[in-house]
Structures are given as C-alpha cells and as structure tokens.
C-alpha cells in the first residue's frame, strides 16, 4: 500500500461518482502514479462498501483480462476481478437504456453459479468443476468510467474492472454436460456476425478463470462462498454499442440470448 485510508476513500468516492453520474473522469493514476495493486483493490473494495452501505446487494463476481493475448499486451501475468451489483442486472430479451452508461461495450461470456465454497491457494480446475452448480450463457456490459477508455490496469481495478451491467440467458447446463473450452459463441449485432470464439479464449478454460479468482481472493484472506454467481471473462472482444443496436448471441448447447439498446 502506498496510499493512506483517507486517500483511498476519496478516490472511491471520485470513481463511484463517475459511475453514478455517468460522467467520465481521467485515470486516477495520473494523480497517484505510485499507486500499487493493493491500493487499486482497496479503492474497489471501498466502492463496494459505499454501495453496500446504501443497500446495494452484491450479486456476484467477475473476472476481467482473462485472455493470454490481452495480458501480454498489458504486461501483466494475472487477470483482474471485480464485483457485480443487483442493479447491474439487465433483462434478457428486453430493452436496455443507453443512458445508464457512459460508453458501454458488450462481451459474450459463460457464467457459473457455485454450490460449494471455493478457496485458494491451490484451487484448480477440478475443484472448480466439482463446485459448479450450473453454467449459464451471459453477457457483460462493461463501461469504463475513464474518458475515451484511456486507462492503465490499476485504474481499471479501482474502477471495479469497468463492470456496469450483465445479462444472463435462461438455459443452464450442468458442467459435466458441457465441454467448456470448445463451447462456441457467435455474437451478432443487428443481424451481422461481429465476433465469435470458444470458451478456451478464457485462460484456456472458463473453470481455470474461477480457480484463478479463488486463488487471488485467497491472497486477501477471502473465499468464494457457495451460491456465488461468477462471470468468467470475455470469450469475444468487447463490442461497442449504441441506441438502436440489437445484440443476439448463440451459445453452443446453451441457447441464445438477445437484447436491445434504446
């Protein structure tokens, strides 16, 4: 830690206000270039505490930067994680108001719900597969609070890894009935295929992403409780959207999921 609690609190208020007021800010490392990873997560957890104090329920956890190519590009060896809020839930098949966001982008993912607690260190794919209750098709709506997406990774972590909204599809499956690495995903925007990929784009296996989450949380002395909803990370690149755009995503073995921005 390089920052004291007062500055952490001040930054949490600053970044959360950007979200609440939909007003983009410059990246916080401009003012605090020496901020370290612990500081960044401390800001994120302070934002989380502010929301919980206001009555917001934490709906789950999310992984970000789960592609090996993106990690290499950003010069880091670990993905990042954040939390999901109850008010971030958006209806499948419904309309999503653009004015909830600053400059949203969508990425296709698979999500899981756990039935047992997961704790690290040493959490692995086997433990995760044993702990997954169901696998669901999902979309994350990310919305960086930083102007023009100009940020570094520590600023992103402080900004709850750009988490803003999510949509979950209705068709779930047991993990043993799916081959998650080869699970294909095809994303269409306004009837045209814009992105496609397979589950292995997420750290080789979406379950490996959950294991990594458990291990990263263990470093903070925390575990993932049973019943946690987890977005495992983008299978596709994030696609920019605007009002009027219709997104439809097909998941191998997990049906389809669609919604419209208005």
């Amino acid at each position: 830690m390089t920052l004291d609690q007062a500055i952490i609190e001040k930054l949490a208020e600053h970044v959360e206000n950007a979200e609440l007021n939909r007003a983009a800010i410059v990246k916080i490392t401009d003012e605090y270039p020496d901020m370290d990873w612990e500081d960044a997560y401390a800001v994120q957890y302070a934002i989380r505490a502010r929301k919980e104090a206001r009555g917001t329920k934490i709906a789950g956890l999310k992984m970000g930067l789960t592609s090996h190519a993106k990690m290499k590009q950003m010069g880091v060896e670990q993905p990042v994680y954040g939390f999901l809020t109850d008010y971030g839930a958006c209806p499948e098949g419904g309309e999503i108001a653009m004015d909830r966001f600053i400059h949203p982008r969508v990425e296709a993912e698979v999500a899981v719900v756990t039935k047992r607690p997961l704790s690290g260190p040493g959490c692995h794919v086997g433990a995760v597969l044993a702990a997954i209750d169901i696998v669901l098709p999902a979309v994350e709506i990310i919305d960086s609070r930083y102007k023009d997406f100009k940020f570094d990774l520590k600023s992103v972590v402080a900004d709850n890894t750009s988490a803003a909204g999510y949509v979950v599809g209705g068709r779930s499956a047991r993990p043993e009935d799916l081959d998650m690495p080869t699970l294909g995903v095809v994303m269409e925007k306004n009837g045209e295929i814009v992105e496609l990929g397979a589950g292995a784009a997420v750290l080789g296996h979406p379950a490996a992403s959950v294991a990594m989450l458990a291990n990263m949380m263990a470093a903070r002395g925390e575990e993932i409780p049973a019943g946690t909803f987890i977005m495992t990370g983008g299978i596709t690149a994030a696609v920019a959207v605007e009002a009027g755009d219709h997104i439809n995503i097909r998941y191998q073995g997990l049906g389809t999921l669609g919604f419209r921005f208005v």
Partner: protein
Amino acid sequence: MDPKTIRGYGDELYDALRRQRMVAPITDREPEMSLEDAYAISRQLLERRTADGETVIGKKIGVTSRAVQSMLDVHQPDFGFLTDAMVFNSGDHLPVSDLLIQPRAEGEIAFLLKRDLMGPGITNADVAAATEGVMPCFEIVDSRITDWKIKIQDTVADNASCGLFVLGDALVSPARVDLATCGMVLEKNGEIVATGAGAAALNSPLNAVAWLANTLGAFGIGLSAGEVILSGSLAALIPVQAGDCMSMRIGGIGGASVRFV
C-alpha cells in the same frame, strides 16, 4: 486468355508445386485475368497432377471468412481440388519441408458425403441430408505465389492455395451438432493460438458446402458420394514449420493433432 497461355500458367504452377519454388503473382503479369481464366489454370494444374497418378477425392472451399474476403476484396468464396496425395490422418507426421513452401494451418470442419449433390437449387437441408458425417480437420494451406502476395485470381489459379489436409479422429452426424455454434480451439506447441466457431465459415459451414454445390452445378459438375469437402477456416491462419506440433478440438465433433517434419 487463350488456351495456350492458360496451359502455360498451369504448367508453371505445377512446376512450382513439385519443385517447392515460388513464382511471381500471375495477376502482375496478366492484370486483365478473369476468375474464369483462373479456374481454367487451376484445372490445368490439376490435369498435370492427375497425369502423375493423383486422384481427386474431394474439394476445398476457401475465402469463407469476412476477414479474408475483405483482404482480397471479394464477396464470395473460391474452391480447389483435393487429391489422394494431400490427405493425412490425425497423429501423422506431415512432411511439410519436403512438400510445401510457406505453409499455414487452418482449423476447419470437413464433410464426408454419402450422396451426390448436384446444383443449382441445393439448400442447407440438402447438404445436411447428403452428409455422412463431419470431421475435425486441419487444412495446411500453401501458396506457390511469392510471399503469399495473392489476389483472388492468383489463389484460384493456384488450387485455392491448398497444400495438405489432416482428417481428425471422429466422424459425427450433422444431426448431432450445431455446425454454426460449435467452438474450435487451436493449439500450437502446447499454447492456445486461436479460438473460433463454425459460423466463421460463411455464417455456417452448411452455407459453404451449398455454395460449392450450386457454383459447380452451374457448370454441370456435381459433388459425389464419398467426396470430402473442406468447408473453410474457423479462425486465423497459423504459420507453421518443421518441428511444430499442432492440435485442435471442435465442440461436439472431436479433435486432430499433427506434427510437422
């Protein structure tokens, strides 16, 4: 293009193939060359191969992804011929240094037909009904044109840049798999290098095979029972060389692995 010129270019590409030598793009020398000319050259190249004793066992469809179509500035696929000299099985050693020039690997879905398909008027339903099964497949593309500096006519003339192909470990009825959403993972030397899904090939591999049947049908040519049809790449092309190993897996279908020597 007159028949003699066409024969000349077909022979030139045949020699390039056999001697593993690159030739300058034909479109540099024949800027007016049409797609029809290009397919005529491709047939001359094939005739030279069949004269050597090679037998046609199927066809490949290329230029099926939006990325490659925009690179070549075309809005339709192309096709080439597969011969018995080009087919390998999963686990085989692939003699790329003896046979190819500048190979790149593609992960694809191969169709094995159980009935003839004669266009025009072939629909995706006809293709699915005529398919014995689909297989995971590597196509090792190669260009006899210097540094892959190809226009669409160059690649068509050069047998759609086909090199070799490797059939995987499973034959699965198309009724058992959603060919548009099946995901693919490509690994090179143990590292994931690309992922994709069936829809990368012309929005569905079935579209690609129907296109081929209808395109050939316009010339009175059919696809025959027993033929193998490679339906187009599902992810980026991966350059390979002797010493590399690659493996791939397609959700609901199976996998293939190969070692390049």
